[in-house]
């Protein structure tokens, strides 16, 4: 069993119903659709068990489906080219998700950036200041 399949099994066991399915793309890239409630558990599993590195968080406006958030986790130090992308989807009207910064400081800047640029609320972020905009910019991130 390759590492990717092992991770799928682990995530399925950990998330249960929150696991929505997975698909593979070229160059050993694994995309996992999950529910937004499971993001902390899933990220902690990847970071604490496998030492994954969080490359970045991207947000894609997927139209009617809502906002796709993509957490890019690099696991290429364990298996060649393996990357796991967790993809929770948030509704447009109240995009809210748990922050993973309390568990890993790697997410600090990229979550702050996404607060600013995509208006996503990261609940429980310890340092929700502006990052690119001036600190005194009137609209504070939520």
């Amino acid at each position, binding site marked *: 069993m390759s590492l990717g399949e092992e991770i799928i099994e682990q995530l399925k066991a950990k998330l249960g119903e929150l696991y929505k399915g997975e698909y593979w793309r070229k160059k050993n890239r694994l995309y996992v659709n999950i529910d937004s409630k499971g993001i902390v558990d899933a990220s902690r599993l990847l970071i604490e068990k496998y030492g994954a590195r969080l490359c970045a968080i991207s947000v894609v406006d997927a139209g009617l489906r809502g906002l796709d958030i*993509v957490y890019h986790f690099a696991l290429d130090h364990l298996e060649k080219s393996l990357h796991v992308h967790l993809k929770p989807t948030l509704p447009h009207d109240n995009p809210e998700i748990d922050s993973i*910064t309390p568990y890993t400081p790697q997410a600090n800047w990229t979550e702050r950036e996404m607060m600013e*640029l995509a208006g996503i609320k990261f609940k429980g972020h310890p340092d929700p200041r502006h990052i690119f905009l001036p600190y005194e910019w009137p609209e504070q991130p939520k």
Partner: protein
Amino acid sequence: MLGKIEDKASAVESKDIVVPIGPFHPALIEPVYFRLWVQGERIVNADIKVGFCHRGIMRLMEDRSFQRNIYLAERVCGICSHSHSTAYCETVEQLGDIEVPDRARYIRTLVFELERIHSHLLWAGVGMDLIGFETLFMLLWRDREQVMDLIEAATGNRVIKSINTIGGVRRDISKDMLGKIEDKLKVLEKATLNAVEAVVGDPIIKARVKGIGILTTADAKRMGAVGPTARASGVNIDVRRDDPYSAYNEVTFDVITRSEGDLYAKVEVRLLELLQSISICKQCVDKLKTLGGSIVAETIPEFAPGEEAFGKVEAPRGELMYYIVSNGTNIPERVRMRTPSYVNNPTLPLQLIDETIADAPIIIAGIDPCLSCTDRMVEVIDAKSGKSETNTLREIALRYGRKWRRT
């Protein structure tokens, strides 16, 4: 959980002097703002503020065709222009299922490594200048001119190479040119060995950089540092080996790591990487001499709606990531890039605390921060109301800005 920073922040008292470094400062090539709380010459806390080079590139990319975006991607950062365009093209090629011809892959790799040599020599020169060794700075840059001349002759320009295109490269490197590159590489190898000796053997340089700006292995892993910064802290990662692109799975090279994590280790890692780069260049030149074939793929790419691709390259400063989503047209739906400085910059406060002000510039330069890379800027969120100075800011922004969108 952020550890050291938070603990120190509570201990900061009002009697500490705040020394600003930036936004504009002779030690910083690009605008960034550091606030250093100091007691005497010792730094007790540090804060970093980025965002002075916002150009809206990620947003702009969503308005332009895949082909025109190559030149925009190159302009995210001047020093790693080829890294950006390679990362972009590789990702688009994954997206459109394009096979790149072998010759094009080797030319890309060759130019990539020439760029790494020029970037590392540039960094070494700037680093020497920051510890006050002006002469070595000048001499290293004199040696760097050799690479710049090569790049200029091979690609047509010194910094912005513009040699990549989707599915290959735009310009072939002739036999003649390969011979010239080979000759220059020999000169360069000598100069590099000389530079390594000069830097490693100099007592004052050693006294200045040994044991300062330490980033421990645990911290580097925790903060997700990449590139030479991580490798100098004992984290053994290199995209060229872990996630090979272009022709990197066909050339041999060593990944240089050091476990100390101080500035001296960072200098060593970069200088020794130079020798590895020269060796990769030589392998590419040898291969290109015999390798024939076209330099660009003939297929016309098609991008299915909702398709996504994720590509990484090892830029001179570390891992550079592109994530592109297509929507079926010749314009990308979303381009997300994450540059190496973006993850290395947050490690700076950890390195600065408990050092002296005299060492601050060289510690900041030690991770080779590229602020233009860090701040790409996407959209400006509409301000409802505010104080007068922010209104002015907004007015200026509205007057000169090109595209504004409310999210």
